[in-house]
């Protein structure tokens, strides 16, 4: 009886339209900003995926191999990749700057490696870590938020305090400690061993940090939903909770989750680069955009491009992700769209 009642009292879609995804997609593709963002993201992802091709065929280099005493021929002139300074007292060694050629397009870093090739490989690591962290954050944060918002009471209090702990947690301490612990034998979680170089480690930390960003809006929305007429009616009719969650709550929050995903990924990319500052995450000689920035900051005064390039790529990627998130939100709820 309750089952049948549940079927009858299916939750109406919030925007009143007959379907959710159809009109949304239409609005999305009409939005030029969103298209631009999507294209840009795709281009970046593809370029990074093609990193091995670039390294082998274009730059002809191994971007993880130190090349401090290497030499390169430009316009017939052979030059060391890391050159001694000859002015004044002749102190200091400077990597070559951007050559504009296939080899060392953006110059070399302090180990004599090709920055452009590392940038592409770095993108793979940064995007992968951020994506995994985002997935983690969405799953965990979504679950926490929905449970806290729906059940209220003690569960809500406990989970909200848990979120407080996560929010206020000394992430950097955890990061530093984990980086030292994981040095020798890796992190042991029962039968599971995570090597210190495994990108899963930073993804885990960053994912945890991002949980409140998802849980809070989820909780707020679900709390409001919980008090809406159709949910109250369903409860009144004795519809079992899992069914209510599945049929009434989930479809209505899925839009918010979708909007949150790219925004969360943007935040996670920034967190990843900040954690690279503290040597947790991708271990040398592997690269992520954050570690290249860190290398570049040590070269800021002589070869600023090494720090500028990854910063700009992070900015472009995060920008596209944010644009996409905004466009998704606009497409989902036309009331928020710009007035024509």
């Amino acid at each position, binding site marked *: 009886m309750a089952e049948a009642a549940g079927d009858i009292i299916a939750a109406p879609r919030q925007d009143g339209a007959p379907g959710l995804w159809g009109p949304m997609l239409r609005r999305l593709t009409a939005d030029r900003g969103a298209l631009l963002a999507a294209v840009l993201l795709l281009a970046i992802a593809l370029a990074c995926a093609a990193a091995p091709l670039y390294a082998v065929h274009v730059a002809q280099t191994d971007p993880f191999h130190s090349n401090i005493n290497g030499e390169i021929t430009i316009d017939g002139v052979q030059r060391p990749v890391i050159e001694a300074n000859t002015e004044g007292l002749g102190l200091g060694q400077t990597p070559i700057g951007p050559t504009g050629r296939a080899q060392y397009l953006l110059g070399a870093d302090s180990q004599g490696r090709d920055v452009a090739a590392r940038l592409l490989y770095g993108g793979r690591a940064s995007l992968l870590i951020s994506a995994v962290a985002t997935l983690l954050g969405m799953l965990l944060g979504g679950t926490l938020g929905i449970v806290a918002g729906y059940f209220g009471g003690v569960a809500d209090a406990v989970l909200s305090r848990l979120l407080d702990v996560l929010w*206020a947690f000394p992430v950097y301490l955890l990061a530093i400690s984990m980086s*030292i612990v994981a040095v020798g034998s890796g992190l042991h979680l029962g039968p599971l061993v995570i090597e210190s170089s495994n990108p899963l480690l930073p993804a885990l930390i960053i994912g945890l940090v991002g949980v409140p960003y998802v849980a809070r809006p989820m909780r707020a929305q679900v709390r409001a939903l919980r008090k809406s007429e159709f949910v109250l009616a369903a409860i009144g009719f004795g519809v079992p909770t899992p069914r209510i969650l599945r049929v009434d709550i989930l479809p209505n929050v899925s839009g918010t989750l979708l909007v949150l995903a790219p925004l969360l990924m943007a935040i996670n990319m920034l967190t990843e680069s*900040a954690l690279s*500052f503290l040597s947790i995450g991708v271990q040398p000689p592997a690269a992520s955009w954050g570690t290249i920035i860190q290398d570049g*900051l040590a070269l800021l*005064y002589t070869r600023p491009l090494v720090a500028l390039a990854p910063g700009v790529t992070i900015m472009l990627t995060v920008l596209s992700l944010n644009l996409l998130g*905004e466009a998704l939100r606009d497409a989902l709820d036309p009331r928020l769209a710009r007035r024509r």
Partner: protein
Amino acid sequence: MIRPLLARLAQMIFVMAGISVVTFAIFFATPGADPSARIAGRNASPETLAAVRLSFGLNRPLPVQYGLLMKRLFVTQDLTSFMNRGELVVPQIFAATPVTLSLVGGAALLWVGGALLFGVLAALRPGRMLDRGLMVLGLVGISMPVYWLGAVVNLVTQSRLHETWLFSWVPPLGYVAFADDPWGWFKVLLLPSFTLSVFYIGLYSRVLRSALIEAHQEDYIRTARAKGLSERRILLVHALRMSLVSVVTLFGLDFGALVGGGALLTEVVFGLPGIGKLTYDALQTLDLPVIMATVMYASFFVVAANALVDMLYAFIDPRVRDA
């Protein structure tokens, strides 16, 4: 009214206690965190090492050490650092507080002002060039890693263009107390506050803009328009007032986190000896007493800000209030 307040207070203390225990556990789980050898000096004989451990109480069982640490931090307030022997920790916190407050306060002024300006301008004519331009600018703002931006600002203002009239006024990195030199204090904080505010201007201008636009759809706005009020008046007076609610609560959370030491990377890049830098240095040197103190300080502000915001929400919006 009092009961939920007390309950919330109890929860706050519980959260902070939980954080302190986890911090303590993480510290002692980290190999190489034992400061005895560092303090004893290189190539110290085993006897010297043992003597140092004894004098720091590091040979006591962990729960005892935890209890002593908490007591010294909160009750007797005579907690001393591991790295710098004899240096009291609590006065360090208090000395660093005005620096962080100045930085975060200045940034807050900038970002609230900037967000209001950009958000309102953008919402006035949504969809037009100004709106799109400002929003892209805002997006750029929230897409830059703050320590990277700070390093670039330093590169330009301290080194590359330091000689030019544009930046010759830029003082050396570091902090000048307001009591010592008000004008110097202002100059020292200008660029760091600006750097810190960039992210938040971007974020808040967007939040404000979408909140304003959403408010515009509300029924009472339609009523006001029907009554014949000008668009500008509607926007500035009515819509703004409702939108400010969400902005204010967001502001409370962010400000709380920053005051507690969230501006860590900005302080490090600009050499400002605030709470963030104190935390960062303590983490680098694995100085447990200072780590514990700064973590407690930070978590207090975050938890308190959360509680305040939740209570504010319950107060303003009856729909959200618990039955």
